[in-house]
């Protein structure tokens, strides 16, 4: 086997390896979905961020418009601070509200944006004023039981 032949075959081998890696990265994983071009950063405060994780999608009307970059706690107000990157081509009004929603019944959580009617738009570094925290299942069940109990009590009073 001559030197040229060996080098060519090794080149083919390495190429196949990189193609495999590229295929895994693009088709099998979410690399393509992650490169979203120019973005601007926006923050939102929540009482409870629930199960939201970094790199969770930010959607409006069900369409992904950005990603959550980091989640931290505000030391003074003890609210959760969610920082997210939104694609530059989507501009949202200043009075947009953000809610933490769940995909499906028990799926991953994401941030849903509900655009408002303000003429001015959110700029980089702005904070979204109106937020709705994540639904915590235990609280929901507690409320349900409480309201059922109250109803039952009300019925008994009649």
């Amino acid at each position, binding site marked *: 086997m001559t030197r040229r032949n060996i080098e060519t075959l*090794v080149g*083919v*081998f390495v190429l196949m390896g990189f193609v495999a*890696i590229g295929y895994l*990265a693009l088709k*099998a*994983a979410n690399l393509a*979905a992650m490169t979203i071009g120019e973005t601007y950063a926006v923050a939102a405060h929540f009482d409870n961020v629930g199960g939201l*994780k970094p*790199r969770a999608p930010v959607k409006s009307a069900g369409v992904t418009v950005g990603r959550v970059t980091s989640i931290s706690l505000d030391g003074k107000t003890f609210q959760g601070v969610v920082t997210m990157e939104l694609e530059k081509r989507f501009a949202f009004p200043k009075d947009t509200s953000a809610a933490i929603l769940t995909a499906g019944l028990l799926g991953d959580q994401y941030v849903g944006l509900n655009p408002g009617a303000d003429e001015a738009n959110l700029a980089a570094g702005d904070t979204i004023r109106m937020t709705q925290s994540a639904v915590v299942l235990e609280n929901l069940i507690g409320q349900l039981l409480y309201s059922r109990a109250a109803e039952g009590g009300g019925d008994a009073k009649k």
Partner: protein
Amino acid sequence: MNPHDLLAGLGRWALGFLFRLGHGAFFLVELLRNTPASLRRFYLVVAQIHAIGNYSVVIIAASGLAVGFVLALQGYYTLSRYGAAESLGLLVALSLVRELGPVVTALLFAGRAGTSLTAEIGLMKAGEQLAAMEMMAIDPKQRVLAPRLLGGIIAMPLLAAMFSAVGIFGGYVVGVLMIGIDPGQFWSQMQAGVDVWDDVGNGIFKSLVFGVACTVVALYQGYEAEATPEGVAKATTRTVVISSLAVLLLDFVLTAVMFSAPR
């Protein structure tokens, strides 16, 4: 055998084990020290990638395909009980990329390329080729061993990626073409659930670590083999056994470190 002999034998074995571990670590450091020199003669590394990688492609691809088939079949059986059959793509991809790709590739590598390396080095030693090189003022570690180490480290992640890719394709063939799962769901669930850095990236890192481990074990066993036919035979057996155990142990450690921390 009285208990005293037994205990003494156990102690001897333990000391021997520690010695070999340390000796092997020194060996690895020696090889790494000689790596820059062999990078300068890159043709040697290329020839080794050919011997290690190209000749393993067939078995890796065939195994990957088979594993992909089986994963799809078994996975479908279990997932369909929970009505989650559309997640088959995700199951196949995650299993392969995170675990089966690196680990099975490493085990196959140990069997195919590792034994070949051990036998080759052992026979070179038995035929005094390494001594002859030393007498010619050429360091065999630089010329013979370090290129093989580099070849193994470079070839392994590429082989693991090929295994996973072919496996996913195999899963597609069985899941979509044979069983009839919706291809859109198959791919979209997969793409939504498999993360490039956390899953694919970590898998590649794992296979790099396995590449170092398997290649070093193979080279060490060959280099320290007794210069007789029986010696070489024992050395190749030890290569497979030690490589496999090392891979599984490292897999446990790496998985615990990389994957258990919640994102």
